[in-house]
């Protein structure tokens, strides 16, 4: 275990940079990550795991080309060797090192640990996980299987770049997920819930109690026992506040990442200033929301994070970029350069992405729907960047009939086209909510993200259920 931070000095960094002959920019990303997990299954604390991941990634940029390598040690000699591999594709460029003097970049203060993760004994974790189990089991005798997984991670980050900038940050994360199965005869249904935030273990006192998280999963499983097959066809869809932010993440989030713009692969390429969504839509990506899963003091390239407005009243305002795409596309840096670990180069990624609040009341939004679908919780989503087609997959959804929420429905996927669906947003609620769930975004590399949304109605979206002609 590291007692005094990552053992790598500014002199060590200068030594690495002085060995680089080609390229125009370089950075070193050092990381020491400790994760501890506990798992409850069959009512017992069945396993516990610790994993340590430590190393240094080095990147040499030459215009639009990036060479990358890493080593699983903090030995300056190993990093120098990795730098040699990283500069292999740099063709030219006069490498300039400005390590002298140096400028320290301090991370924004968006997270802390009141109950520190590393110092907490493993049996404290076991107690917390058991309270989740109690919450789920205690909800109903029909709940016959519960699985609880809790992982807490502390990431120590140290970054140096060839502009002489450096900075360090400590990033905590608690991720708990629970799956509950409800059984009635031959009918099994599952419910899932969880919490994922950049905090210490105080998250369970301040945000949501373990029992409540367990009850939520149990309640969802019980609800789904009575679910009937979802309808098939195009109809109005109302998205409940919070988790439905998956819609924003998939439909406009990914297509507004600047690497897709740079590669001319996104449907939004070259459209800044155009009306791309209903005037009711304002979409924001924010890395500064305290304790949010997507919060970062600075991104993985030392760029301070901020609140970036992507779409304002339906007009496209900007993209989420990293250092390379900002430079190539001549954009102001937004602080979206992120990586899964020291083994990966940074690329433009979302932080916490959400739609801002509107004026309608949720009750009114639902009451106006004659026949449609109301979605509460989600298993996930996916988007085809180029065509804009996206899906999102509800794990808890209901029919709306004559302005009222009626029966729960199961086995459905919603499919739409991002640019098209957002023009069909005809109500935005006054009940904005950030999800506290365990969202992971996969784009070659996995990173934790935040999502959020007020109640939103889309006038027409394709609902893919199995009840044809229902």
């Amino acid at each position: 275990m590291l007692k005094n931070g990552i053992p790598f000095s500014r002199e060590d960094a200068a030594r690495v940079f002085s060995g680089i002959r080609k390229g125009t920019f370089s950075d070193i990303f050092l990381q020491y990550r400790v994760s501890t997990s506990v798992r409850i299954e069959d009512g017992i604390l069945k396993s516990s795991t610790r994993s340590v991941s430590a190393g240094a990634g080095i990147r040499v940029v030459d215009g639009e080309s990036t060479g990358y390598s890493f080593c699983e040690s903090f030995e300056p000699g190993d990093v120098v060797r990795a730098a040699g591999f990283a500069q292999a594709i740099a063709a030219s460029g006069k490498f300039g090192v400005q390590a002298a003097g140096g400028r320290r970049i301090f991370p924004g203060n968006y997270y802390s640990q009141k109950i520190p993760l590393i110092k907490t004994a493993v049996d404290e974790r076991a107690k917390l996980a058991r309270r989740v189990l109690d919450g789920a089991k205690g909800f109903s005798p029909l709940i016959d299987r519960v699985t609880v997984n809790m992982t807490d991670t502390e990431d120590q980050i140290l970054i140096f770049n060839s502009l002489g900038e450096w900075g360090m940050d400590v990033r905590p994360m608690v991720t708990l997920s629970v799956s509950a199965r409800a059984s009635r005869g031959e009918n099994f249904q599952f419910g899932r819930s969880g919490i994922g935030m950049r905090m210490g273990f105080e998250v369970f006192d301040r945000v949501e109690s373990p029992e409540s998280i367990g009850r939520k999963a149990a309640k969802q499983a019980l609800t789904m026992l009575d679910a009937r097959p979802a309808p098939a066809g195009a109809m109005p869809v109302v998205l409940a506040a919070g988790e439905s932010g998956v819609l924003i993440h998939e439909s406009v989030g990914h297509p507004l990442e600047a690497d897709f713009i740079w590669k001319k692969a996104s449907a939004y390429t070259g459209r800044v200033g155009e009306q791309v969504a209903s005037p009711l839509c304002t979409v924001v990506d924010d890395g500064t929301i305290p304790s949010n899963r997507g919060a970062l003091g600075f991104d993985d390239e030392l760029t301070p994070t901020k609140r970036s407005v992507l779409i304002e009243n339906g007009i496209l305002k900007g993209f989420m970029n990293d250092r390379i795409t900002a430079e190539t596309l001549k954009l102001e840096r937004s602080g979206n350069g992120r990586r899964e670990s020291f083994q990966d180069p940074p690329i433009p990624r979302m932080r916490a992405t959400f739609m801002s609040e509107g004026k309608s009341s949720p009750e009114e939004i639902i009451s106006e729907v004659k026949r449609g679908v109301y979605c509460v919780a989600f298993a996930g989503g996916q988007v085809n960047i180029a065509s804009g087609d996206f899906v999102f997959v509800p794990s808890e959804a209901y029919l709306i009939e004559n302005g009222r929420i009626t029966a729960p429905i199961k086995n459905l996927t919603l499919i739409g086209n991002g640019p098209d669906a957002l023009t069909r947003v005809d109500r935005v609620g006054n009940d904005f909510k950030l999800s506290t769930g365990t969202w992971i975004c996969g784009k070659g590399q996995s990173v934790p993200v935040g999502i959020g949304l007020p109640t939103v109605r889309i006038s027409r979206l394709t609902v893919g259920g199995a009840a044809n002609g229902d």
Partner: protein
Amino acid sequence: METKEKCREIAAEMVRLAKSDFEYVRVFLTASEEREVEVRDGKPENSSFSESVSMVIVVSRDGRTASASGSDISPDGRKFLVSSVQELIKVVEPDPWYIIPEKEMIGSAGKKLDPVDYEGYESRTVEQLLEEAMDLEKRAVSIDKRLISGGATVSASRLTGAFACSFDFSEGFEGTDFSMGISLTVDDEAGDSTNVGRKQRNGWSTTAVHLHDLESRVDVARKAVSRTLGQLGSRKPPTGEFEIIFDSTSSRSFFAALSQAVSGTNLYRGESFLLDAVGESIASNLLSIREDPFLPRGIGSRLFDLDGVRAMSFPVVERGVLKNYLLGVYAAHRLGMKPNGCAGGSSNFVVEPGNGSLDDLVRETSRGILVTGLMGQGADIRTGDYSRGAEGFLIENGEILYPVSEFTISGTFSEMLKGIDRIAADARPDFSVLAPAVRFRKMVVAGS
């Protein structure tokens, strides 16, 4: 990078270090080296060249289990992993189903897998990778001037590793892996008025254990282009019931999900629609599937599993009847069955080929949809529900009419499996799930 023999020594040494404190110890160590380049618009865009190591130790005592993993395999790093499991095991509760594997099962199957092509690997210098990626990209974009490159990637990696356990057994393994692919984008002028800026993006890639088994650059370029241009002008199909053909890419994802549904871990947790189904007819009698860890040069081939249990080949589905689950030591014990070398899941999941090509399936379809791409997490093996986003082509009277997208297909795994009425013989060896194109008699499509 550590050699296979060195990995074996380290793993065995690690077991010796922890052995006296625990009833049973097993260690799994892998070391890998990877070289990858990506070019776009004739210029190098990314290259990476890295080595990494990962070691996992799993210990047990009185029915309690704990594990730790890390990349530091130095003597200090090993000591830290051992001290971690010593701390963690104190809070874990005894598991009444815990079992130490029978010593006789532990070992390495005596088969030749032909798992490495070191000559091929050594030929993969950064310069060579760059040259091939540039060539692949040039070939692809020159086929049609509307095409924009999304990047051509060529990579090579090699892996060594070892398993060791308290039975004084330790064994190494090794492998190489080569791949090459390209993604392409094209502006799509069709589509309705609210759908501005629509593009089509697609591609193709190939993977093999031996360099010369890769598809040629000519073929990769041609397939990538045809998949990308094929979707131009796609629209929604009507809502209704259709015959559905999965091409081998879509079929692979369906059968990969099925392999999860028959894996012991999901079964003992009650998270599969195939609980207590061995001996039952679960699919059309056209369908047979076997678990085959011994395919020479197979992507998933192995001689033992994560428990160190000797690998074996056996039928999973025979003429529609479920014959065996995929079992590791613990799951087998939970289910009252015998382990069959599948801790960590399937090695190669091989769907027995039928006959004919994808084109034959299309020709034999009166009103259907050929699915070439699937999206979303709507394949739920726990409940057996299936609902996913899709794209592909509308078929009428054996002819492709037009490309379709932005629709879903829905049903259940059971209905789909029983509804398989045609299987082609075009599985690709590029993946550990070897699945040919299949046709399902009927599914619900939600479109316009």
